[in-house]
């Protein structure tokens, strides 16, 4: 599904160049649930941004579902993001003047899905994350966990190939974190490929594979016994 070869990325900070990713080789198969771990500054968010086509790579190659991702125009990148990727952010990033249902329907709007179908799909995904009764509520009327579930529904709505979650539990207490992880695990059970960036050990162990990043290189890549989040909920 995802294949990265010899990926380099550096940022220019005035006169200094900051070499963030120093040759990453990395492969994700369909249906995997991968945790990308690392302390802050290890380059995990940069990696996720490049995977999410939010940032460009300097060197190396990136192939997503057989499509080489390189030198995309903004428009093309937007279309690919819409088609291939679903994003889950630490701070949810819901649009605060839109209801939960409208937020979920937004990626479908950019896919030019007809209105009726869009609403139906949005409701369907809201139901999946257990928030159907909150469909007409604005984000500020929802709790943190609920917001993240809306965000997950939104990421799912476009039926992407890969879900990218950047610290999805970073802003949540541990109980809600486990609820969110439970949801992510269930989505993974249905065969969706998911990448989770986290620095929390327990969250990482709820994935099936852990990739450790340190100073821009992968120091460890191991399959783990998945801890089901269900038992903590």
């Amino acid at each position, binding site marked *: 599904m995802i294949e990265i070869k010899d990926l380099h990325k550096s940022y220019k900070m005035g006169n200094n160049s900051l070499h963030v990713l120093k040759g990453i080789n990395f492969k994700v198969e369909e249906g995997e649930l991968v945790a990308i771990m690392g302390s802050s500054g290890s380059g995990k968010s940069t990696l996720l*941004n490049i995977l*999410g086509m*939010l*940032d460009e790579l300097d060197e190396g190659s990136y192939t997503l579902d057989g499509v080489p991702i390189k030198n995309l125009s*903004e*428009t093309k990148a*937007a*279309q690919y*993001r*819409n*088609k291939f990727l679903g*994003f889950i*952010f*630490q*701070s949810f*990033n*819901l*649009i*605060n*003047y*839109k209801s939960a249902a*409208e937020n979920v329907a*937004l*990626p479908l*709007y*950019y*896919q030019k899905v007809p*209105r009726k179908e869009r609403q139906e799909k949005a409701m369907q995904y809201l139901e999946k994350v257990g928030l159907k009764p909150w469909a007409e509520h604005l984000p500020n009327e929802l709790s943190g966990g609920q917001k993240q579930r809306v965000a997950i529904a*939104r990421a799912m709505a*476009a039926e992407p190939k890969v879900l990218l979650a950047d610290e999805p539990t970073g802003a949540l207490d541990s109980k809600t974190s486990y609820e969110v992880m439970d949801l992510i695990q269930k989505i993974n059970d249905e065969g969706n490929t998911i990448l989770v960036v986290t620095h929390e050990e327990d969250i990482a162990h709820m994935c099936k594979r852990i990739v450790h990043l340190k100073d821009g290189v992968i120091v460890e890549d191991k399959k783990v016994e998945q801890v089901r989040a269900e038992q903590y909920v």
Partner: protein
Amino acid sequence: MKFIFDRNTWQEIFGSIGKNKTRTVITVIGVLWGIFIYIALSGAAKGMDNGFEKVFESVSMNSMFVWGQSTSMPYEGFKTGRPMQLKLGDVDKLQNRIPEINNIAPRITLGNFGTDPVFTVRGQKSGSYPVNGDYPVYTKIATKKIFDGGRFINDEDIEQARKVCVIGERNVQELFDKDEDPIGQFIRIGDVYFQVVGVHKLSQGVSFDSDAAIFIPFTTFRKLYNTGDNVDYFCIAAYDDVDVVQVEKDVKTLLRNIHRVNPEDERAFGSFNLGQMFTRVSGFAKGMTFLSLIVGIATILAGVIGIGNILLISVKERTKELGVRRALGATPREVRSQIILESVFLTMVAGVMGIILGAGVLAFINGLTKDLDFPYTNPTVPIPYVLGALLIMVVLGTLIGLIPAQRAVSIKPIDALREE
């Protein structure tokens, strides 16, 4: 184009501009004020234009008067100071030689230009009034509204030198009893009895005659006062599309020629050019229209710039939202179109409201000035002007929207999403 008529697009736009209602309203007021000023000013200018037109409606707009004075240069053996007397024969010569002339009305009067008014009697009542000897053609230059049942002097009156007269409203008031119909009655003008055939109504605005002027046939006048072929002055109306200043010059040149006056002598004949006056007055009204156009457009521009400014702030505030949208698959084009459409939409809403408000104020002013003696009538803004203003607003709205739109697009989604 489909994008503009898509319900979803509008939902997005209403969503984002409805987010900060106070700010949206204040922004809209800026443009609304601009278009309001534009409509109100240009309507007022138009009203003034119409008003002036109404003032001049009873006289031919490119008309002039010519009268004889006395020479100021010796010529062909004549010495200086020879008084000039216009003659009836001049009419045909002028008409034949100057094709720009539409109508010439020779007039002779008593009671104007230093002569004594004529003592007029009816029964126990009397008064002194100016008396004019006129041809029917006079009404083609200065419209005379005649009250029902009456008429102006006609050709037969001239031919037979009938003793008929047309009197003014004030004559009727002073010579007749209330509720008495003057038509068909006789009044004594000087020593001769005349039958009243019409009562002329004093016209609003510019008029050559007072409301107490008595008109009698030119031929009757000349018989009565033994004036022969003498004419006091000519009322000349040129055709609509000719240069009246030139006609005035031509007429005077020709008159100098006929009366054997030095061609250089500017003082032998006097003239007053109403057409030139009118051009000046209407030039003033046009200037007002132009000024209101400039002021209006400048105000609209200021308002639209205000919208651009607010959208720029709004884009800044919505950086994150726009980043999310782009992460979710909004293309730069879609983001740009949305911002521009927001700008155009705000401009249009403001514009339409301003037009309605402006029209309302114009209607109000019209109501106030309706019965006033003030040159202000029917203030309107022509539809093309309104459409033009709307078009300008759409164009400006688009252009000004481009700036925040470009700003919105230049933000990379990753920068937009980065935590503060």
